[in-house]
């Protein structure tokens, strides 16, 4: 089985077999990342461009390491602000980069759907590294990888996603992926941070955090963007934390062996308490490690699509 697509834009469009393939392949790459010499010659001569319109050290670095371990050349483009403020359109920027013979363009952009514009117009393989409020497919893949590694399976697990669901591309990608792989997904947060009609994506909605956590196998805590304050989604961070901060005591409502995840960076004491973030059940750093293996797998599989 191979991945028959040029781009990785979202999880929504992936079927179960494709997700399985990426996760299986990532397992092999995790072995590679455990070697003394962590570099294989697979993508020698290929050029990977990190095109980031939003600051993100973590995701960019993870992609960069993944590409370098596959022996690809990596170029980082950081562009601040949207195309409008620069006077050059996104497409112009991307066409310029393609003209330099980029094989992969990894894009992070504040506007939902920006990677789709590139994918439609360029021959390069486009990987979505987070677009607006839409999706962050490699994050969901690494989350699913981490869950499968810990729990041995995804099917049948209960996963509670807590916090700002409305503005979270991580939540969306995970909702698509986890439900497709057979998990039961719950979301919890204040009403203004739960997107409209999210139930239609196959999740159940909770406003009470303890209820949402009850019997959960996996707790996924989302980062609360501090900019959300003052927009009346919730009155204050203080009250948000009082209602939705994952504390030791609240985590106790989940199953005894529940694992605790966070896509980072963590606001300690706001969405998650320091003891929980650093506790035994936390897999936050494993997520980061697995991110590299998953991104290597994605680069490898897309390079074999025959399109580039």
């Amino acid at each position, binding site marked *: 089985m191979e991945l028959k697509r040029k781009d990785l834009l979202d999880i929504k469009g992936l079927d179960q077999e494709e997700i399985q393939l990426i996760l299986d392949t990532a397992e092999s790459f995790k072995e590679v990342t455990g070697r003394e010499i962590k570099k294989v010659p697979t993508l020698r001569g290929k050029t990977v461009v990190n095109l980031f319109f939003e600051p993100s050290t973590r995701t960019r670095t993870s992609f960069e390491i993944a590409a370098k371990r596959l022996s690809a050349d990596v170029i980082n483009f950081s562009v601040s602000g949207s*195309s409008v403020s620069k006077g050059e359109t996104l497409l112009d920027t991307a066409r310029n980069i393609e003209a330099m013979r980029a094989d992969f363009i990894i894009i992070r952009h504040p*506007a*939902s*759907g920006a990677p*789709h514009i590139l994918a439609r117009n360029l021959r390069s393989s486009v990987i979505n590294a987070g677009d607006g409020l*839409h999706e962050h497919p490699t994050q969901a893949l690494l989350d699913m990888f981490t869950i499968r590694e810990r729990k041995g399976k995804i099917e049948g697990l209960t996963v509670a996603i807590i916090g700002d669901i409305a503005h979270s591309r991580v939540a969306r990608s995970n909702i698509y992926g986890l439900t497709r792989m057979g998990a039961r997904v719950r979301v919890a947060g204040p009403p203004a941070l739960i997107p*409209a*009609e999210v139930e*239609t*994506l196959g999740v159940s909605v909770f406003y009470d955090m303890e209820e949402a956590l009850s019997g959960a196998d996996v707790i996924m805590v989302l980062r609360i963007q501090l900019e959300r304050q003052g927009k009346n989604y919730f009155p204050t961070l203080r009250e948000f934390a009082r209602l939705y901060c994952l504390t030791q005591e609240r985590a106790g409502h989940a199953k005894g062996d529940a694992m605790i995840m966070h896509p980072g960076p963590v606001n300690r004491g706001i969405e998650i308490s320091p003891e929980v973030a650093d506790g035994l059940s936390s897999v936050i750093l494993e997520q980061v490690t697995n991110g590299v293996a998953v991104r290597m797998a994605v680069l490898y599989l897309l390079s074999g699509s025959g399109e580039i």
Partner: protein
Amino acid sequence: MNLLIKNGRIVDPVNHVDQVADLLIADGKVRQIAQEIPVTPDAEAIDATGQWVVPGLIDVHTHLREPGFEYKETIRTGTMAAAAGGFTTICCMPNTKPVNDSQAVTEFILRKAATEGMVNVLPVGAITKGCQGEEITEMGDLREAGCIAVSDDGRPVMNSAVMRRAMEYASMFHLPVISHCEDTNLAEEGVMNEGRVSTELGLRGIPNASEDVMAARDIELAALTNAHLHIAHVSTQGSVELIRRAKEEGIRVTAETCPHYLVLTDEAVTGYNTNTKIKPPLRTLKDVEAVRKGLREGVIDVIATDHAPHAQVEKEMEFDSAPFGITGLETAVAIALQLVDEGVLTVNEMVLKMSGKPAKLLNIDRGHLSVGAVADITVIDPRATWVVDPPQLKSRGKNTPFEGWKMKGRVTHTIVGGKVVYKG
């Protein structure tokens, strides 16, 4: 030269005429309608066998962009598009640069339209200066210069007291107040309908309530001021119901919807096609059905285009950054015919909602084919099929959501004041 339209189906709902006959135009006026008018050497004959001959279509909601945004559209290209779409009269919205809030701008538009325009252009003046929503315009001046209505289209008057004063003042000059119903606070930074699809696409949503609360407010203000309120581009089930109730109560309200709200839902946004980004946004099937029902039952009086051309470079943006608006002049007839085919409207109702009703709402002597009436006439071949190919559109704006659609029904002749201005 006289014009003789032979053998067409003459549909003139205002005069309750629907028959196959010949129609003779002389001196720019309808001279005679009869069976078998003989062809004479001084008349050019148009064979309209199998076609419909209807009063020239009137669009109460067009953006011509000139002055100020000539790169999007000009009075020349916009009226060419209108002619190609079968419209003989169009009302241009005031959100140009400068805004049409003074006699000078109105006169500029009318002068340009007289020299370069292909069809009649009736300017809509601004409700408030600069469409800023603060100080009302000199509507007496605007009326005198030729404005036929007022509107702050695209930038609704959020302050209810200002809207009240504007309505009171406009009613003195018998100017309809055209309201783009949107509570901009509720719409926030929304770019599409709020619902399942916006959640899936991760795009910020605009709830139905943003339209409904403003429709409710403006209806109450119309009741208070007895002004003529015309609600633009109705897109929600809620506002259809509000307008229905207002009409039952005898409040002076009329309403329009646009072809796209009758055939497209927010599903069309999937794929982030910026040519589906409009205000109000494409809604859900439930709303489309309610708007169709409202149109059929007469709650909605008029089909308008809200033709809003933009340059390709503006629409080639990220969905969040692209401007709102789509073109519509050249696709309206085909979409309206689709509704006829689907049994939503009869041919007569369709023609009435695109000519007789708009004329009535604007208080102009158009929209009928009485003998002696100005010969603004549209000839439509209801069976002609074509595919929407944006580069072939006359409008400078190629931003149509109907790209690639197979259409049935096309304008073959557009006649303004007895002159053929478009031949398909």
